[in-house]
């Protein structure tokens, strides 16, 4: 039996990798992928607590499924935005795009 802390540490590592990626990647697609990692870290947490807190109704798993669905939807929207930005600015580097400045 793998202890709960292992799952949580994995989740935390995954979150940190995602956060780091989101903060450091210049490529907008990379940022999007990093956000997916963060979401997956959250999914692991949901399932872990569902398993170890002894609830038998599977509510955490349902939430994980919901998050996956929403992540898919947000990826679609994000990619559409990236394509639109690329068409206008001819770049998808996040540090080149500062239209929201001031």
């Amino acid at each position: 039996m793998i202890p709960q802390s292992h799952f949580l540490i994995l989740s935390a590592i995954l979150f940190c990798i995602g956060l780091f990626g989101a903060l450091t990647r210049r490529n907008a697609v990379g940022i999007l992928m990093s956000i997916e990692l963060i979401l997956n870290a959250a999914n692991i947490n949901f399932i872990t607590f569902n398993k170890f807190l002894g609830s038998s109704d599977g509510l955490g798993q349902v939430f994980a499924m919901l998050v996956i669905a929403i992540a898919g939807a947000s990826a679609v929207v994000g990619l559409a935005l990236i394509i639109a930005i690329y068409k206008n600015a001819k770049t998808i580097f996040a540090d080149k795009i500062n239209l929201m400045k001031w």
Partner: protein
Amino acid sequence: MVKYSYLIPLFPFAAFVINILFGRRIKKLSALVAILASAISFFLSLAAFIGYLGGNGSYTVVRWLDFNAASLNFGVTIDPLTCMMLLVVSSVGTLIQVYSIGYMSHDLRFSRFFAYMALFMCSMLGLVLADNFIMLYIFWEGVGLCSYLLISFWFERASAAKAGMKAFITTRIGDTGLFIGILMLFSAAGTLNFKALEHSSGNQALFTIAAFLILCGAVGKSAQFPLHVWLPDAMEGPTPVSALIHAATMVVAGVYLVARTFWLFAMHQPSLIWVAYIGAGTALFAASIATVNNDIKRILAYSTISQVGLMLLGLGVGGYSAGAFHLMTHAFFKALLFLCAGSVIHAVGTQDIQKMGGLLPKLKVTGATFIIAGLAIAGVPPLSGFWSKDEILSEALNNGHPVLFAIGLMTSLLTAFYIFRLIFLVLFGKPRSELHPHESPATMTIPLSILAFFSIIAGFVGSPFMNHAFQNFMVFPQESYIPHAAGAVHLVMAFSTLAAFSGIGLAYSFYMLNNKILAYSVRSKFLFLYRIIYNKYYIDEIYEILFINPCIRLSRLSFKFDLGVIDAGVNAVAQVTVIIGKIKSWFDKYIIDGAVNGLAKTVRLSSGLLRRVQTGLVQNYLLIAFFGLLILIIIKFIKAG
């Protein structure tokens, strides 16, 4: 016809309105308008007189005004006194206006002159018709106004403007007394109607004071001593004005007033005899000035003052009809004298009698009428002045005032002297300067002839030949107030005739024998007296020192006070306001505006700093959000720990 008498003053008023509004357009026709109105008034007066003789009631209220407490009826009086005044005023007024056509023909303000004349006629006729004090006072001020306007008619001359002001202010002193008197009567009796007042019983002491105050008004208007100073200066006006207003009608308004309120004076005794004293004193005093003056019009002005004094003397000794009689005859011969003087001035262009002389052959009509008027005023029988003056003298003697009689006789002598001095110097002898006189036009000589006719015959109505018809007509209802004694009529007649002839003789010996200009020998003997009289007893100078200079000094003082205290105060307030304003402005600028601007600057500065955060780079936002989360977690742990 009595009930239409209220129309008498309205016709001249209509003429005034027409002339003042359309005078420029109708030009010379304005004279016709004014004369026509006066003539209609004359015929209406005649009708009223005949109606009155026919026994048509004496008091008629034609319209009235109601006030809260008391009712003041505006009505007309038709009684002997009013009838006489109406006829005199309207007839003399009409003749003088006809004369004015010729006299004023070259004047620029021809129509304006006739407008004022018409207004005067309206006021004067209204004055004698009034049946109460308020109406009388309104018209009383009306004639005063016309007098002022006409004296200063040639206002381009500073002396004329000043004379008008002098006349207005001097008579105003008397008028104020009159008004106070009227108010006293009202408070004592509660009515102002002459008839009602006569039968009212009130505070008798108040009535006596009121009588003196009314006398004060009469003294001002009739130019009696001490308020006589305005009349000689009033000669600055055109000569027809002097004839109508300042000889025949307006100046006798005072006499009329005393006659109208005769019952008041008679019942409150000390007042009546004061009328006589003032009249007698003024008569002698003014006659003496007239003997040495050299201005043809001023001599006549002093003569008027003197004659009006005689009328008051007559009233004052109880001779109601005698005073009224002299008023009537005087109106004719004095108007004639003035018109003759005007004709002479018109002919020679000067008023100084020293420069005239020998005018009779050149001015035949004027000269002849002048002599008739002179004989009338001197009291030569059987001309009009003789009968009326005689009447006054006999009243004085018979009612027990020998001193007043002597003063009257002395005045008669002086009157004969100065008027013949005037006639001898102007009409006889040799011309004393280069003059080219010419007779006046017919519009001037015809009125002269008519007035000369009246000057001769007007006295007969009061003479024994007509059984004293005038006196019987003019009889005062309460004649019983005054003790009457039938006396030495023939003695008085002899005395007054003697006085007249000795005056004329004296003038002849002084001025005709040797054709001397002035009686130098007599003058040098009484040089001191001559100087005093020649300078009109220094009355003007005394007034200057006593009243006018203090008045001017007071005005200057008030001016200085105004400048130094009131103005300074106002200026100080203004300066304080300016300083307060400056402080407020500073406060507004630096405190209020400073606060508002400071707030704005703070916001701008802080927002300038904070906007740096908004880089627009999405990763920065995420980083900040992350650090924010971290801080929240740390706080959470610190709190929990």
